[in-house]
């Protein structure tokens, strides 16, 4: 995942998290064609269709054999549709789950923000003013006390950062699952696509055959039109409906994945900016109060999550040099620290706005998907009723099957 590391190399550039657009409604008529069917497969399927049409027309229109051939049409693609439907039932809980996960990460981010706000130098008043007992007697240094508060907060912060890393791993895991699911779905859609091609070819073939038979055998032409062709058209509609749902689910999965990637970026950036601010604090404490601030836990975290923090390390080295150069003037380091805190806030704000927008487009996608799935369920119920009524043609491999 190149993006997660690329952006963190320079933490000073603005973080933009773009929520993906919601997945539009896919009309069944336009659903076919996403997964290409290879030409040699097409010719094989066409051959199957031609054989089937010949075989069908050779039977007596009133014979049970004719009926058995027609049953093959009603069963055509049943397995493919069932498989695709199984997949689409699973997408519905995925976006919801992803949103729940986001809540987990979101809670951690909120907690991080609260903790960091407590350390923000801009909320502490004038840190450079001498501290006085009863407002009169000089007593210690405000600045020294302020930097001491880092030491007590570091355990809490490192715990939150570790949790955020865990959350990030979960998001990565989710994305891996989505990749696998999309791969399966792609294969399933390929099979559906084959069946769509086949049913369209059947439609054409039967139509033509019926037209030919009109002169020689009108009774058979009628039978072909009223049974076979009727079922083929119904079946085409079923296949296209399922195809639309699958395509929509496929795109929805991509949307969830993109959201996760953006969120991972956000989490990474929040961790980096936080650690960056703490490191700045260490440097500033050294420069201003000549105070050796030891943040062991943060350093430990730093090495364990070295990969994402690496970029920050580079940035911090530059900053450290700069801060040391400016150490002569006393107020500038404090400003640097304030900027570091501002960086954290900016990151968190952009995550928040991202989440609002992403949630919105996710909701839209889920709503459309739900509608489509309900529609396709009605189709599937009908299909199942039909196939149970006709009984699967036991034994003899159906001629109307997709290629493996």
């Amino acid at each position, binding site marked *: 995942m190149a993006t997660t590391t690329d952006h963190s190399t320079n933490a000073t550039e603005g973080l933009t998290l773009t929520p993906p657009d919601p997945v539009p409604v896919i009309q069944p008529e336009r659903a076919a064609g996403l997964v290409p069917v290879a030409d040699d497969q097409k010719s094989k399927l066409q051959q199957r269709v031609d054989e089937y049409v010949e075989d069908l027309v050779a039977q007596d229109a009133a014979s049970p054999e004719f009926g058995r051939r027609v049953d093959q049409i009603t069963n055509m693609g049943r397995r493919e549709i069932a498989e695709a439907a199984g997949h689409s039932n699973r997408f519905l809980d995925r976006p919801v789950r992803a949103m729940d996960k986001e809540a987990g990460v979101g809670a951690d981010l909120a907690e991080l923000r609260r903790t960091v706000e407590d350390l923000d130098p801009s909320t502490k008043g004038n840190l450079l003013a001498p501290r006085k007992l009863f407002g009169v007697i000089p007593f210690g240094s405000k600045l020294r006390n302020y930097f001491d508060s880092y030491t007590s907060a570091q355990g809490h912060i490192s715990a939150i950062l570790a949790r955020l890393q865990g959350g990030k791993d979960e998001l990565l895991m989710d994305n891996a*699952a989505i990749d696998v699911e999309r791969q399966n779905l792609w294969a399933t859609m390929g099979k559906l696509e084959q069946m769509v091609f086949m049913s369209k070819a059947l439609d054409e073939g039967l139509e033509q055959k019926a037209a030919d038979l009109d002169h020689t055998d009108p009774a058979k032409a009628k039978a072909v039109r009223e049974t076979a062709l009727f079922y083929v058209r119904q079946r085409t509609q079923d296949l296209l409906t399922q195809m639309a749902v699958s395509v929509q689910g496929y795109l929805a999965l991509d949307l969830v994945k993109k959201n996760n990637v953006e969120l991972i970026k956000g989490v990474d950036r929040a961790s980096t900016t936080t650690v960056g601010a703490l490191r700045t604090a260490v440097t500033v404490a050294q420069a201003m109060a000549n105070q050796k601030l030891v943040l062991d836990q943060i350093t430990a975290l730093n090495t364990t999550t070295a990969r994402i923090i690496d970029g920050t390390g580079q940035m911090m080295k530059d900053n450290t040099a700069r801060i040391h150069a400016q150490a002569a003037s006393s107020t500038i380091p404090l400003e640097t620290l304030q900027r570091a805190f501002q960086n954290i806030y900016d990151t968190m704000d952009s995550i928040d706005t991202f989440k609002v927008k992403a949630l919105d487009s996710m909701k839209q996608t889920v709503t459309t998907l739900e509608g489509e799935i309900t529609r396709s369920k009605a189709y599937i119920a009908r299909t199942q009723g039909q196939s149970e009524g006709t009984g699967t043609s036991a034994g003899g491999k159906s001629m109307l099957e997709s290629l493996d």
Partner: protein
Amino acid sequence: MAPPPSRISKDVIRAARRQRAARLYTARKARWAHRWRRLRRAIVAAIVLFIGTFTAALLLGGLPFSAIVLMTLLGFVTFLGLATFPRSPRPWPGVPDEAGLTELAAATEDWLESRRRVLPSPAVDVIDMIAVRLEQITPQLVSLDETGPAAREVRKLLSEHLPTLVDSYTRIAPSLRHRPGPGGTTPSQQLVEGLSVISDEIETMSIDLSRHDLDRLATRGRYLETRYLDVRDSN
């Protein structure tokens, strides 16, 4: 309509035959062991009875003739009774509908074994194929939820559809089994077709059951890739 050759793999069947021979051998050994145990017990009982009678005769100074006849008869009855009962466990149980999900596959296999002799030879090939697939699905059934829809389907197929199919074939008089019906196929062919469908369905169920695990493995692999490999590549 002979079954398409793709459904029956000769290699698989050969392996299945070997498996079956081994299974039958162990079953036969177990049966004989049982018989020997029974016979041993009967002999020991007869000897004990004889010694008992003999000792009693010595202590009492002779027994009346009627007592000797009675004891002899008793000896015979005991010997015969113990040599015959308890019967060896029947190697082929009834229809496997009461077996738990985990024993279902094994029970079905045993049941098919008992029907093997009455089935036509092409069906025997298919039955061997079914046996192989049952072996394959057995470990998967262990972790299956007993009340889930998948378990219901497996149970229905193995304890309902399969026995019904075979029974409805065996109920046909042997002379009629090879006579073509109105559909143009003989009952034997229909049986083979039906068994092939069941065999394929067991395979499909097995694939369905392992799909979740396959996906989980693929997901884990993909996760490791994104988590460690891609990050390293981009650095």
